[in-house]
């Protein structure tokens, strides 16, 4: 076979994939009778435009949360741990951050630091719970971590509906956190500095994945549990440590949402936008390659804010974003899924 033939064979499937995705989006637009040109320009405007790039800032703000969640699950997935409970860890973090900031006395900066710490602790604890369920009680991580999403969602909902509710506001939400703890915005924009925390977490995850012994060991565990066990790696300890790191990052993302965006905990604010699930598919899109994860997280954030733009200009329901994301994952994941192995059906064995 000629080399040119080989290149053709590599490019053609991707071209077909793009064509399919484009055709499906086109069909959806046709279905709602949206003007095609306006939809496209609305999408681009909504994702990257706006006066003084206001919408681009919104995209960046959203990607701060999505990339953070993506980095969190990436560390678990690379270690072969099907932790799909990021949502619960995120909620635990957001709730802990808001409650700590409301309850703790002291200078705002100190309160902020303590609250972020509390958020990371809460996220890590919630992830560890799933790990303990798998290691010591035989509950597969895949279902254990997922089922744990629901209790914490309702616990958080209860906390802001009853004991810590801001009753006069009439909404199911906590009181505002002290104004001194609010994250500042970049000068001249409405983008808060929360994204810097995500960048720090991403930098940590990249260094951890690419150049630490610990990260290397967890990767071995992800590639072959038998091998990791045979060469004497402390598999249980690695599992729990990895989950704790994942959970802590998810908790941090919850804190960013509280201090940077909402300034309180609102019921459903971390669940409804599907940040955790978007983070998961952002990791799957690029086959868990660490350096590409922030890019794909930004991409999905842009799909979501772009869809909101399409709704404004062309009346396309913005939920189209979810459909587009799912379709992309379906088509692309089957091309890169070699990177992810669920041969044991994600049951995780007894590792």
């Amino acid at each position: 076979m000629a080399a040119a033939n080989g290149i053709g064979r590599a490019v053609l499937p991707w071209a077909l994939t793009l064509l399919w995705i484009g055709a499906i989006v086109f069909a959806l637009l046709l279905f709602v009778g949206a003007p095609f040109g306006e939809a496209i320009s609305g999408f681009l405007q909504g994702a990257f435009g706006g006066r003084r790039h206001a919408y681009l800032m919104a995209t960046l703000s959203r990607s701060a949360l999505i990339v953070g969640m993506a980095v969190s699950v990436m560390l678990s997935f690379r270690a072969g741990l099907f932790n799909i409970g990021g949502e619960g860890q995120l909620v635990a973090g957001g709730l802990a951050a808001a409650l700590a900031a409301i309850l703790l006395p002291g200078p705002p900066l100190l309160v902020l630091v303590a609250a972020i710490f509390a958020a990371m602790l809460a996220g890590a604890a919630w992830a560890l719970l799933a790990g303990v369920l798998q290691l010591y009680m035989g509950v597969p991580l895949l279902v254990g971590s997922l089922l744990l999403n629901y209790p914490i969602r309702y616990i958080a909902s209860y906390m802001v509906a009853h004991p810590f509710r801001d009753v006069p506001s009439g909404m199911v939400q906590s009181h505002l956190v002290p104004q001194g703890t609010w994250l500042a915005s970049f000068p001249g924009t409405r983008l808060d500095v929360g994204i810097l925390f995500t960048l720090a977490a991403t930098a940590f995850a990249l260094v951890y994945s690419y150049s630490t012994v610990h990260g290397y060991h967890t990767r071995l565990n992800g590639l072959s549990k038998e091998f990791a066990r045979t060469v004497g790696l402390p598999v249980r300890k690695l599992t729990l440590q990895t989950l704790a790191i994942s959970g802590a990052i998810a908790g941090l993302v919850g804190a960013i949402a509280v201090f940077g965006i909402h300034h309180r905990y609102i019921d459903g604010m971390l669940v409804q936008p599907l940040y955790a699930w978007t983070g998961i598919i952002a990791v799957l899109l690029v086959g868990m390659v660490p350096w590409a994860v922030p890019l794909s997280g930004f991409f999905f954030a842009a799909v979501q804010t772009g869809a909101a733009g399409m709704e404004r200009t062309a009346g396309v329901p913005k939920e189209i974003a979810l459909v587009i994301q799912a379709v992309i994952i379906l088509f692309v994941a089957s091309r890169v899924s070699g990177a992810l192995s669920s041969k044991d059906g994600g049951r995780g064995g007894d590792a």
Partner: protein
Amino acid sequence: MLDLLLDPSFAASVPRFVTPILLAALGGALCERAGVFNIALEGFLLTGAFAAVLGAYFSGSPYLGALAAMAAGMALGLVFAEFNLRRGGDSIVVSIAINLLAAGLTTFLLRAIFDVTGAFSDPAIAGFGTVRLPFIEAVPGLGPILSGQSVLFYISVACVPLLHLFLARHRLGLRIRAAGENAEALRAGGVNPRGVQLLALVACGALCGLGGAQLSIANVNLFVENMSAGRGWIAVVAVLLTGGRPWPLFFIALLFGAVDSLSFRVQGLGLAQQFTDMMPYLATLIVLVTLSWWRAKRAKGDAS
């Protein structure tokens, strides 16, 4: 608490909650036995619930609504098969994508077709009535439970022995089990395991679709965004716990459905709704822990 459990209206409400979990779990069992790791039951259920409302609204018949739900579930089964079996995508990835697709497509279509967000209810949605069984309803105790349910409940219960016999005796049932246990042997016998797995996925879609119809046009007469609310995941757990064997599955679904129903009932007792809402998930975790503890103990007993 005991009063509540003995309350006949509690018992009579259990089947309403059992049906969707049982139907989804039976579908999942087919996939499990065929060797397809399908954890997209949540998305299948949600799609079924939406399609049922769509069909019942436009046709005016709950039966056509249920058929639409089955068709939508089967279509989703085909999508799963295309990306998992034919294109070789990882089953967990495909499942996650299908769950998101279902959540996205149902809310998208809800707005595109009915121009509402959140929930759609309309008197034109034809719901299933209840079926009264003339002699059985007079039986004390069991009568009110077994009689006066939707037709989907009776179908779901009938499916348990049928699926059991099908897997144990029928040629296709044997092939499904062979696809799951030893695909090479099946291929050697001249049968393509993927074709068998495709059938299992499509049948799973049909069963989950019916389960969704129970949620939207039998229990209530409306569609609410994300109304499957984790029941598909509970069905996944039921399948994992039982290895996809129909009879054990039936009892697990009965248990989960009873807890679901109980959590609905205790809301009247002054317990905050958030705590009753989390009961099904906690119960599922408790059952998971208990069963694996019991299995570990039994394995130890066998070894000694």
